[in-house]
């Protein structure tokens, strides 16, 4: 496969992961890159600090684009566990499905998953925006601290368990809510945030009015014995 004009190609069938990451992590790294033959390798395009554009042409293993800063990464395939974990800024777009813990602890940036995401999507998220066109598994947004999780499909059990200030928007069904997570009214601010995120995620056929909004009941912000059964 040849890259687009001015796009450089990194072929993992002939080069090593170390060579790939050290090249992309260089201070002057710039422009567009295609990574060929990823073959599900772990730790692809991690620790990027420059505003480069990366296309991973195939499936990625664990922690693809981990701790990303400023780079825009597209995965033309499925992503393994912990895609975009602890991302600080930039964007990651998974064209297929993502495994568990997608966007875990991420502080910023945008994670878009066209397919489904597994369990614990957005676990301990700290400011990232996550848009999932499909469904998410159980314990998603567990201990979510801030940022927004948009789920166009369904959510599994214990959604938003022990939630802090993350906003959760779900279009489909929610199997169950976790401790201290409750449905909230959709305010105009919520609707605007959701509309913007759908647009950023390239989702034009679904409207914000189709979603319900969930957030923290804030009953567990201070430990009280009367709430012990919620833990």
């Amino acid at each position: 496969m040849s890259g687009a004009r001015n796009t450089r190609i990194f072929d993992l069938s002939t080069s090593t992961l170390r060579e790939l990451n050290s090249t992309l992590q260089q201070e002057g790294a710039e422009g567009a890159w295609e990574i060929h033959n990823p073959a599900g390798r772990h730790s692809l395009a991690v620790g990027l600090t420059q505003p480069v554009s990366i296309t991973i042409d195939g499936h990625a293993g664990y922690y693809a684009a981990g701790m990303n800063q400023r780079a825009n990464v597209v995965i033309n395939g499925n992503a393994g566990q912990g895609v975009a974990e602890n991302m600080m800024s930039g964007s990651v777009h998974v064209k297929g499905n993502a495994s568990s813990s997608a966007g875990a602890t991420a502080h910023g940036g945008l994670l878009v998953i066209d397919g489904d995401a597994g369990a614990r999507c957005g676990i301990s998220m700290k400011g990232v925006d996550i848009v999932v066109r499909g469904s998410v598994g159980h314990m998603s947004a567990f201990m979510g601290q801030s940022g927004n999780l948009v789920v166009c499909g369904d959510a599994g059990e214990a959604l938003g368990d022990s939630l802090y200030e993350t906003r959760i928007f779900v279009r489909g069904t929610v199997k169950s809510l976790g401790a201290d997570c409750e449905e909230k009214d959709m305010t105009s601010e919520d609707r605007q945030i959701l509309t913007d995120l759908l647009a950023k995620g390239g989702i034009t056929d679904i409207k914000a009015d189709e979603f319900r909004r969930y957030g923290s009941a804030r009953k567990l912000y201070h430990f009280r014995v009367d709430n012990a059964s919620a833990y």
Partner: protein
Amino acid sequence: MTENHHDVTKTFPRYSATFDEFAISQIQRAAATGIYDIRGGGTKRKLPHFDDLLFLGASMSRYPLEGYRERCGTDVVLGTRFAKKPIHLKTPVTIAGMSFGALSAQAKEALGRGASAVGTSTTTGDGGMTPEERGHSSTLVYQYLPSRYGMNPDDLRKADAIEIVVGQGAKPGGGGMLLGQKISARVAKMRDLPEGIDQRSACRHPDWTGPDDLEIKIEEIREITNWEKPIYVKVGASRPYYDISLAVKSGADVVVLDGMQGGTAATQEVFIEHVGLPILAAIRPAVQALQDLGMHRKVQLIVSGGIRTGADVAKALALGADAVAIGTAALIALGDQSPDLAAEYAKLGAKPGTYDDWQDGRDPAGITTQDPELAKRLDPILGGRRIANYLSVMTMEAQTIARACGKSHLHNLEPEDLVALNMEAAAMTQLPLAGTNWYPGKAGF
């Protein structure tokens, strides 16, 4: 014999050993509040410890080294397995991870100053890296914790080593709870959480679930930091043989083993006192695991949890550790629990030496607080000097013992230099009972 039952001689009043004064107060407190007791510090009850071991100084069959004349090395290199830039320390006594949040910025700075002055490392904690800490620590270990509070790749790259915390001696299997009183605006911002709320730290890492995942996680961190920095894996002492084996399997450069006498910012009293192993019981199986894998001295072992003196340091090294870490002792060295503050401790309902002020943020010593007025009481330069003094004393004490055992380096201390004072310690350490060549589980003469 008296006829009047009022004159019957009574037995002397006696407290129950089971329902002693403290147990009664626990029950009364629980009934009154409905909340389990959360406190800082480490375990308070007596446990098997290094005091249950003795060194066999040289006499006829061993030849000692001359104190103040003959050299006894103290340096240690950590991270020789994979890291491009292993850490070289002048003393094997390091400062354990303690968070900004649990400690004031002044306290973190003082620890950095003191550790740097004697050529050793200090460690961040649950809450991220502060500029004060990085700026004053010549060698700084960055903790990578389940909460990932304040975790960012810039700080990861600023660190000299990275310690992946899987467990903590005071609460293996447990998460943390930093009470809302200590969540200042700065602490809240660093942790991406609202100000003033109780902050729960997760007990497990959010994006890996076992040693196979950890191996991949370590690869990711190495890829982000150019394979330069040693990767430590810290476990709370509970199943040391298996935990250390799996940490090595996962690719650790250094393993950190924290015994149950280790401190914490705050957790449940019952957790502190009833979960985990004393460090004395944990070192031998940990060393055995490294030896069985052929990795002893290749993957370095740091032990912590109740280290107080150079004798403790020397005993830990003789049992097979490469270095030790101190936490509670460092805070005391800084000035916490000082008798000079007795009147102020009394206002808190505490006494110097009871350590009960650490979780509520009103530490009159200015160390375990986020109150700016209290924190000002700690002079980081003076505190740094006290830490440096203390670390130097511990190092010299360990050297004194090593020389008496005829050793020209602390790492030449060995189990053969030790005996156990009682059966429990002999069984736990596989050292002979003092005056014999026998220990439990071994055949006799």
